[in-house]
Structure formats: C-alpha cells, structure tokens
C-alpha cells in the first residue's frame, strides 16, 4: 500500500513540476488555503477508512481488548493466530455455520437481484407510456415514499401488519377461513419478506436512473417509427430498451457484484433464532461473534473473507460486462 502511494505521489509531483514550471514548495505555499480546506477530508479518511484497513490485521491475530492499551500498538503486539495467522479463517471455513451462511447470503443476494433488479426497469418502462404528465408525476411521487422511510420503520410496518391475531394480513386470512401464518417465526417466509420489502422500498427511486436515460431519447425516433407502422410494443423493444441498455448493464454489474454483500441492518431487525436457518448471513454473524460476543479477531476474519469475495465479484462482473457489451465501470 505505502509503496504504491509513494510512487503515485512521486508521479504526481513530477507532472506538477513540469506542467506549471514552479517548484513543489512554492506551489504548496500558493495553495495553502486550498490544502487547509482539504485537510479535514484527508484526516477523516485516514482515521475512519485507512486506519480500519490497518485494523484488519486483527483478523490474523489473537486480539483481545485491554483497558488503557493503545489500539495501534496492541494490534501489532498481539500474537499471530496460528503459525500462518490464518487460524480464524480456517476455523470459520471448517466451522458448522459456514455452508449455511454462504447459502443464505448467496440466496438472499440472488433473489434480491432476480426479483429486485427487473422491477424498477418495468416500472420505468410503464411510467414512460403514461401520457398524462400530472398523473405520471403523482404516481412517481407516491412511489418515492418508502425510500424515505427508515429500515426500522419498514420492518416495523411489516411486523405489525403480519403479526399473529392482530395484524391485518392474519385477520384477513382468518376472515377467509384460512389458518394464521406466523410469518416472522417461519424460516420459509424470511426470503420472501426480505426481498419483497426491498422491492417495495426501492421501486420508485430505482426507476429514476432509467427514466433519466429515457428522457434523452429523441422524440423523432418514435415519430418515424410510428410512420413506419411500428406498434407501441415494438417501439418499446426497438427504441426504448436499447436507449436504456447501457444503464441496465452498469446497474446489473453493480448489483451482481453485491450478490454476497447482504448488509446486517435489515436482517438484524427481521430475524430471530427461529429463522436463522434461512436468515443468518455473513454480516449478522460478524455482528454477533465480533461485537456481541467480543471475539474481534474471529469477527474481523469472517468480515474480511466476505469483503474479499465481494471485491473478486466486482472485478469479475466488470470484466464480464465489458466482454459482453462493451460497457464497464472502469
């Protein structure tokens, strides 16, 4: 890391000197106000992004928090975990939960993409067919509402509406003469609830980027298509969809790379030991082992394992996208 950034610095310095013909020191002096404005940003990322990256070292150590000890040095002085420092990773991969966590994380991520990815695209395409502008903007504004609600509120709404005996859904089931369903106590319902509420939250805001791309389509294209006798479905297929294809590809790459990146927050609110079978994911396991049970080294190892997979997925899906369509993130 430090070698890499030093070369960058040196390269940047060289170009700076040759371009402006003034020395580094004089330039720094001239830009001292700008550099001062930059300082909080440099410190912020140093402390809250790069220092935690250094802190990943705990994953390879047997680290225990001791009162009054400095974080920077106590990580260094802590003993390595096993001879290669990889004991926590080995414990995790060989442990009883590994396959379950991998399966749960993968399936939650996969179902979120399979069902959550096309939904805003369809919504945007249909919105685009609305001719009444006021109606269109009304539907859009309504659809943004869930985006502004907190994840706690969304899970809260679900729990109250799906509660046994008093929730609206179970009351309806009873009225129809059906059995009550204990939605939040049954593992087989977890994925449906998780993915469904995700779609509910993101449908409106998710459609925005596609609508932005659609607004740039030249109206003349549609007019000449009409003159050629193309039906509206054909216009959608041959004009509208190709127009948003680049955005679709980029968004798909981003979501594919996150297939094993299922955040802890929502799952923590929704799951319970009853539903761990389908609900427990890497991040919630990190939370329980690392922060609740204070096994920092093991938790950090699980987290690092997950992050490394995520980076690999990002690079791989980017490469795939470039090969298939010429679109890519970098």
């Amino acid at each position: 890391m430090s070698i890499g950034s030093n070369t960058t610095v040196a390269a940047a310095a060289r170009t700076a000197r040759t371009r402006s013909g003034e020395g580094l020191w004089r330039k720094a002096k001239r830009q001292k106000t700008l550099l001062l404005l930059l300082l909080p940003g440099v410190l912020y990322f140093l402390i809250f992004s790069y220092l935690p990256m250094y802190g990943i070292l705990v994953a390879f150590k047997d680290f225990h928090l001791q009162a009054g000890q400095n974080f920077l040095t106590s990580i260094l002085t802590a003993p390595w975990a096993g001879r290669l420092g990889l004991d926590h990773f080995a414990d995790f991969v060989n442990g009883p939960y590994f396959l379950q966590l991998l399966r749960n994380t993968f399936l939650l991520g996969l179902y979120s993409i399979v069902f959550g990815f096309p939904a805003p695209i369809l919504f945007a395409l249909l919105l685009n067919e609305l001719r009444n502008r006021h109606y269109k903007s009304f539907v859009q504004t309504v659809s943004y509402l869930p985006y502004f609600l907190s994840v706690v509120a969304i899970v809260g709404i679900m729990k109250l509406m799906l509660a046994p005996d008093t929730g609206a859904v179970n009351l309806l089931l009873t009225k129809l003469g059906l059995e009550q369903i204990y939605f939040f106590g049954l593992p087989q319902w977890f994925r449906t609830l998780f993915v469904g509420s995700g779609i509910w939250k993101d449908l409106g805001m998710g459609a925005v980027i596609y609508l932005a791309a659609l607004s740039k389509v030249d109206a003349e294209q549609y007019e000449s298509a009409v003159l050629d006798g193309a039906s509206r479905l054909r216009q959608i297929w041959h004009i509208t969809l190709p127009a948003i294809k680049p955005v679709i590809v980029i968004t798909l790459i981003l979501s594919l790379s996150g297939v094993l990146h299922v955040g802890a927050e929502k799952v923590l609110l929704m799951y319970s030991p009853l539903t761990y079978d389908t609900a427990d994911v890497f991040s919630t396991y990190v939370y329980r082992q690392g922060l609740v049970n204070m096994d920092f080294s093991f938790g950090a190892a699980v987290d690092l394992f997950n992050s490394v997979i995520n980076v690999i997925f990002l690079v791989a899906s980017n490469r795939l996208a470039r090969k298939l369509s010429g679109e890519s993130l970098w």
Partner: protein
Amino acid sequence: MVKDTTFGSRALDTVVHVVMVLVIIVTLFPVLHIVAVSFSDPQSIAEGKASLLPSGFNLSAYRTILFEDVHIPRSFLNSICITAAGTVLNVIITTLVAYALSKKDLLFRGFFMTYIVIPMFFGGGMIPLFLVVKSLGMINSYASLIVPYLISPWWLIIMISFFRTFPQELEEAAKCDGCNDFGTLIRVVLPLSMASVATIGLFYAVSYWNAFFPALMYLNDFSKYPLQLILRDIVLQNSLADQLASQGNAELARDLQSSITPQSVQYATLVISIVPMVVVYPFIQKYFVKGIMIGSLKG
C-alpha cells in the same frame, strides 16, 4: 403525433393503468393502515376492526407516548439534535473538501482523488471501525454517531463534479478583487451553489434521521438513544411474541404483547417516527431525484 387507437395500444394502456393503480395501493396502504390503527381504540385493534379508517377515534396511544412515557419524547429530541448537528457538520466539511479537490491544479490532486475513491470499494469493515471508534474514546457519546460518518465519498464526488462546472470567470474575477481561495468559496461560489448544497444536506439529514446501526453499535446509555433505536426495541419485542406464538404458545404470546407495549402504542410510535418523513418528502423528493441522476451519470 398520430394517435394510436389500435387494439394493442389500448390493451397496453389498460395494463399500464392497472399497474399504476396497484403501485399506488401497495405503496400507500401499509402506511395509511398503520396511521389508521394508531388512532383507533385499543379494544377494536385487538378485535381487528381498524383497516384504512380508524375504528372508534382514540388518542390514548399518543397520550401515553407523549406524556406518560419519557423515552419516546426524549429519543425524538435526541434524533433531532443528532440530525441537525450531523447534517451541518457533514455539509460544511464535504463542501470545503470538495471545493479544494475540484481545482484541477491542486497539488497531488491525482493522489488525493485515488485516496478518496478507494474507500468506496473497500473498507476495513464493522469490527476494525468499532475498534477505532472505541480507542478514540467515543463509545457512548453522540460524537460516535456523527464523526465516523462525516463524509460520504459518494456525495463528495458528486459535489466535486458540481464545483468543476462552476464558471471559472466568476472565480477569476473574485480573485482579482483580492479574495483568496476561501474568500472566493464563501463570497462567490457558495451563494451560487445553494441548490447543490441543499441536495447533499437533505441526503445527509435523511440518513441521520433514519440511522439506527451506529447507535446500536456505539451507545450503551438508554437516555441517549435516538428514536429509531427505541422503535427497534418495540419491533424486537414483537418478534419475541412471534417466536412464542409460532412455538404454539399463543396464549403466552398474547400476554407478552399486552404486558410490554400495548399494540396501539406500538402503532403510534411507528407513526411518530415516520410522520416527519411523510410530511417532508413530497417537498424534498425532487432534490433526491436530481442527486441520483447526477450520480448515475457520473457512475
């Protein structure tokens, strides 16, 4: 344009309208339902009579929340303070840093850009961040909810690209009038950038208001809890009741639910937490839409 009145076209219109009505219902029903139930009297909630309209108008749940229970008003106040302080700090710092990075001839600019982009793709994770916050002595302080989240790299980059489109001539003119970089930013650039500053401010404000995870990780003291964490406790009680119910202890579950927090109070707490957003969002949504569009173009 030629009006298309073929069968296919009309069928498409029908599908579109049906879907739109469905979207409106599915989006609004849960929220309206929760509001309606919170105003119903507890007896009819237990009997399941309230749906879209309250059954038997009753404010007792709100009276309990606002006057009898100390936690909810206090946590509401906590949330307001955290959101206000956090948003102001985030906006100031993001703006200053973005302005500096928007200058093409900034010393080591390439290095600094890489420096802020890397954290977008890779981070230390939950545990190392917790250890850093802990060793800074910020556990159980309001600072722990704000300082580790001062800059979002995403909004920083959007702000940089915004400043880059700022007309150079105006800045040059200010410089000639004797302003330094800071003076130019404060007197010339900022007054003309208020729309963008407001956009990132709103984003930060909404994410502070809705956050619960930092408070869950860093706070121990109940009296410091923000509203979302109080709401979470109530939500979790519910899952305990669910657990009992699904294990066949329906009686016990009902006892638990009524003994801890009455249903009507749960509904009312939920309403109180979402009302600020429901009231404000129609006015601020256009900034969010704009922000996401800028972001998607850059991304």
